[in-house]
């Protein structure tokens, strides 16, 4: 299996960067630093994550780990899959201490997998949705952006931005 992925990677490197080639970029151990701006707050909290990306199948990876802010920590898991074309993506995000999953779907654009929440979430009378952007930036780092928007006024109620650096 690994040989197949490596072979595929080699072909993709030779070709213009194809979206399907992004998934192997997530494999390995990562440390992320960034910020979280929680709902109803003007201040940004520092956030740090330790994550492992590993292959689930030919077209599916798991990007899972633990994130901590100064207020608390928790585990999360992000399952990302692509279709055979390598252009369309779906993802499921779950938190360790909460039931349920949030489903995303989207496409690859250049070095970015841009996903939109499939079903809006209703919380305390508000209809919320989020986008998830995973960008492979220069040097192989990964930038994760996950804003949550109130659909009623398009206001951003929560911001999350983390830059992951691969650990040796």
């Amino acid at each position, binding site marked *: 299996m690994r040989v197949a992925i490596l072979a595929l990677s080699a072909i993709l490197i030779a070709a213009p960067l194809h979206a399907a080639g992004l998934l192997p970029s997530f494999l390995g151990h990562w440390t992320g630093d960034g910020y979280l701006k929680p709902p109803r*707050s003007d*201040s940004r909290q*520092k956030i740090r994550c*330790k994550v492992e990306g590993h292959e689930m199948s030919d077209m599916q990876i798991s990007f899972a780990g*633990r994130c901590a*802010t*100064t207020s*608390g*920590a928790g585990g999360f898991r992000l399952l990302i899959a692509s279709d055979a074309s390598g252009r369309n993506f779906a993802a499921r995000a779950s938190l360790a201490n909460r039931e349920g999953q949030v489903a995303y779907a989207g496409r690859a654009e250049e070095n970015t997998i841009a996903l939109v929440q499939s079903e809006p979430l209703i919380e305390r009378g508000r209809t919320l949705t989020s986008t998830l952007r995973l960008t492979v930036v220069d040097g192989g780092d990964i930038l994760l952006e996950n804003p949550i928007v109130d659909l009623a006024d398009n206001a951003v109620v929560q911001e999350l931005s983390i830059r992951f650096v691969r650990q040796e």
Partner: protein
Amino acid sequence: MNRLTRLIVALSVDRPLVVLAVLGPVLVLAAVGLMRIDYEDGLRALFATESAEFQAYSRHARGFAQSETDIAVLVTAADGLDGPALARLQDFVLDVQFLGGVQAVYSAFSLRHPTDDGTLAPVLPDDLTDADAVRAGLQRATRQSPAGISMVSSDLRETLVVLSLARATSEFGGTAGIVRNIRDLAGQTARQDGLDFAVTGLLPVRERIVQGLRLDQMRINLIGAVLGFAVALLMFRSLWVACLNTVTPLVALLFCLGGFGWLGLTINALTNVLPVLILVLASSDSIHITYDIRRRMADGQAPRDAIADAVIDIAPPCVLTSLTTILAFLSLSYSDSPIIRNLAYSGAAGVLIALLVVLVVHPLVYALACRFTPVLRAMPEPASRRRHFFSGRMILGATARFRIVALGGIALCIAALLVLLPIRTDYRFMENIEPTFPVARSLVRVEAFAGPVTAINLPLRLVGDHAFADPEVLADLSRIHGALENLPDVRAVVSVRNLLPLSVAQTGESTAEALSRTLDTLPGRFRELLIGDDARSLQIMLLVPDRGSRRVARLVRAIDAALVQLRLDAVRTGEPTGFLVMSGALSDRMIRQLTVSFLFAALACPLLIGLWYRRFDFGLAATIPNILPIALVGAGLTVMGTGIQFTSALALTIAFGIALDDSIHVFNRLHLQAGRARTVPRGSEVRRAMMQVSPVLITTTLILSSGILATQASEMPTIRFFGILCIATFFLALLCDLILLPALVTWISGTRGASR
């Protein structure tokens, strides 16, 4: 008995190589067992009983997080906390949450204050380069937080990070590694900047105690062995004899520890003292046998006969002294506490093993060693060195005025018991650790600025359909706060009501909704501390310093009295609980149980002596001279205000069993003098016996005391205290045996003689 000693002689003296061949593999097995010994502090298991208090505590602890399992990290910035220092601290707060077992963190960064629009903003700014905002935030953080503690010291030099462990790992066993990892991370962070990190709290204290136990076992036993050797050298003035005399106690120690290892018995805060006791008891018995062998060889007996006769003569008192010590240990099994019962059985087994080793190995050592000329030359004790350590004037006086002395002793014993009874018990968790240890000092510093880390928990049950944020519930909470806040020792009362100042209702939002929102914003630990898993129960925490179980008991009574007067509509209060309350109540009961154990030992041991010699007068005479030292030490502790702690109750019971050794040597001498005729000793015979045996009594006391002196090298103040109490008891028992015992024997014998 006689048959047993003759069998031992037949084996150890006449077939030493066969016995050695059997002992060799057993020694190897014991050494392997020694490697298997496990260490634990045992301070939690101490109270793990079927008692209502412990069951209530356990039940309550399952429903709510307990602050006692939190780890406090005291962070000090010598030049004062500022932006860069806080940035490093922030890194630590983030990184520490990646350590296994750490569930939640509460720090100055967790503090929130309400803004004008009803939202909560962090007290510390997100831009830590803004010096003015940082200073203003730190000033705000010095105030008492909703958790009842202050997170930053008023001089802005110290701050606190509270780490909560996952409930499953809060049981000890799993926390030692976590504490170590936290300490390592703190060390790495401290190295990078001018910050000082000190990890403290009750779990690190327990971890430090276990560390101390390991060191203690090496240190105390080594010093005990060296002291035993030194006493033997002083006594025998021969390097050969002193070396040979030290072999048996060391083998006894190895066998005991090996046995503990194979039986799965652990070394804990209570059993820590057992190995050195075994060493000392074995040393004492060995010295008696060695003394007798040398005396016989000096009188011209052949080595084989001298060893055999010495064993035959000395074995019975050795067996009896061991039996009284075993009885004293077994009396502790009356306790509800599994760990005290463990001490009882381990102690009894240890003394039995030591006795067997002394009886088998000691003659074997001499049987083998006497084959070598240098040893053979060193063995007979020169007559010039036989000294009387004791003038005997005291004995003459005691037996001449035996009625006055006996009555005086009885009166003193009654007076001491009246001071001692009713027993005033005391227990404090921190009594188990040296106050100068960094982990203990840091805890004191934390409590100085943050507030107590220990709490009395008051469980509440919501009535009917009430929810925790209902106005009726909040009104009841206010009443409870009002009633408890001003009680002595209560530094803060913490409940969901403390979150009200943070819960400014936004437009269209009720207070209840605002309170729920605030709880969501704060670390989840708040909810776990204050609201039960079933959401139908609440917890009020009264933060109180641990100033001993007596003060806690007084405070619990005051809490009960204050609550009785309250009219509550939406909540029902339960019994105050928590580690402080549970340990306070149970320690009191268990220490009282130890008193019963002592009473049992005090009655059973003299009875055993009476039965052993088939002399009722011996049993009766042994009672007062051995209870009096215990009563005097106990009364002294009461007068000094120390009260009777676990250590003192255990020490006095065990010391009683050991202190009887002196009386047994007196009775043994009287018994040997009387011979088969079993005549009642007259005053002159008592005096003669006492003159002969007094050097042995002084020697025994010196041997026991010098060996126990090794406990003073312990890291644990309780073990050092145990040693001091034992030594005090031994010397008082020696005085009683030299003065009171001859008077009582003379009196009782006189009465018996007259009645005949």
